[in-house]
């Protein structure tokens, strides 16, 4: 099993969620993060002073899947979350050694 971690723009949240449901991904965990990278921050204004905001709101998807679905997922995410502008985000793949479904105690692929 692998964990696919995708850090994307907030505006891709809804479409990506839909696309993953379509692709019959059974479960995913989503959280809000801040990202720094090539994308430059924007300026906020406070009483005439500029404030550089260089931590940008991003959304992180964590999806644990069977090894052979990984490239699939990468394709889907890339397709949906790509705008071509700097700041589209990254996908990382991590190894997972074990998975457990708490409700039933099932372990391994069947737990996903």
């Amino acid at each position, binding site marked *: 099993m692998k964990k696919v971690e995708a850090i994307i723009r907030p*505006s891709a949240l*809804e479409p990506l969620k839909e696309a993953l449901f379509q692709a019959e991904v059974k479960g995913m965990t989503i959280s809000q993060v*801040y990202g720094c990278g090539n994308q430059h921050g924007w*300026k*906020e*204004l*406070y009483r005439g002073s500029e404030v550089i905001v260089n*931590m940008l*709101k991003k959304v992180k998807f964590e999806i644990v899947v069977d090894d052979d679905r990984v490239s699939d997922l990468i394709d889907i995410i890339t397709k949906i979350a790509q705008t071509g502008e700097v700041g589209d985000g990254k996908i990382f793949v991590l190894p997972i050694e074990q998975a457990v479904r708490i409700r039933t105690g099932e372990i391994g692929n069947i737990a996903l």
Partner: protein
Amino acid sequence: MFDTGTTAFMILATALVVLMSPALALFYGGLSRRKNVVNTMLMSIIAMAIVGVIWVLIGDSIAYGGADAFDENGNLVNIGALFFGGFDRLFSTWSLGEIFDANALVSDDSTLASCAYGSYPSTVSIAFQASFAMVTTAIVTGSLAGRIKFGPLVFLVTLWPILVYAPMAHMVWGSGLIGSEYGIGAIDFAGGTVVHIASGVSGLVLCLILGVRRGYGLLSYRPHNVPFVMLGAGLLLLGWFGFNGGSAFIADGNAGLAILNTLVASCAAVVCWAIIERIKTGKVTLVGASTGMLAGLVVITPACGFVAPWSAVLMGFIVSPVCYFAIAFLKHKLNYDDALDPFGCHGVGGIVGAILTGIFCIPELSWTDFGGLLYTGDPSLLISQILGVLTTLAYVIIVTGALGLITKALFKGGIRVSTEVENEGLDTALHGESAYPAFGGLD
């Protein structure tokens, strides 16, 4: 001499109505998405500020200046005066020559003070009327939330009070077409037509011109801060005591009746809205209760000084299902994007209120010779009320529609923000400001 009691009353009523604009900003801000909060609130605040300046310089004159449309025999002597006032009271004076005249501003024996108001100063009257124009214009912005550019919005809220609100005020309260006994003869105690129908319908017209938000109908637009919605409604309720009570223009039994009716109509509408929600969805919500409170306040506005408290309770019960229907069904059916529901709440509620006034008005309290159908069996007032509504609709749709289309034509880049801006949120994109920068927890 000024009556201190009525002067105190009108000054404080004005203060409460002035509060309604920030209260509305809060109400609307709470209803909007988190990424559009600043923009939504700022629309109300900038509307309030611009209208405040415009009103003292020119608006009050357009609404209440000028000659009468009819002579004392009811002959039409001045067609323009059916729709507009004049330009004789610019800069909050009674004539431009008085602009440096102190007496005209504060004494009770000046022409300025005595000719028009009697028991309280004209300055207070101007401020009171300004506060109405301010909040009315702010109401309109609710239909445009989440997608209008800031430049066109400023343009709209600058011209709308001059072209729509001030003429409406003249028509209804300045012995113009709608309110004059020689005209349509409709009665409107505190602004059912002038304020609520005018703003709500303008919102509808403009949102049709502007188009729906991206993903409207698919995406869920939920309020980002429900306590703000509740608090906004609560502060609006407070303001409405000034709004409806102050519209008696004297601290007496009429004002008393107005505020009692205001209170019970809003309470009744909350109760009824809760019952509807219980029946339709099984669950009572706080946004629903707050919306019901507003609907009740809207419906009683034209009627508050004319009807008995038990009628006010009834009116509160009647308005909730109608507004609920408009907001929960009609809007989706017809697919217009009245974002924060000014039309569904103010427009629809105002129409219901204007018509019910024709039914429940106690004859002795009516401004005209006609009383409510229920008391007199005579439909004259009811017909006047309906004609008043129709005239209002016609005027508002035509003028606001024209204004909206002209705005669209004038702003070459369009009056809507781009999809990217809509995605990112209008707050950072248009204003470089986020409402809660620290609530990612990274303070």
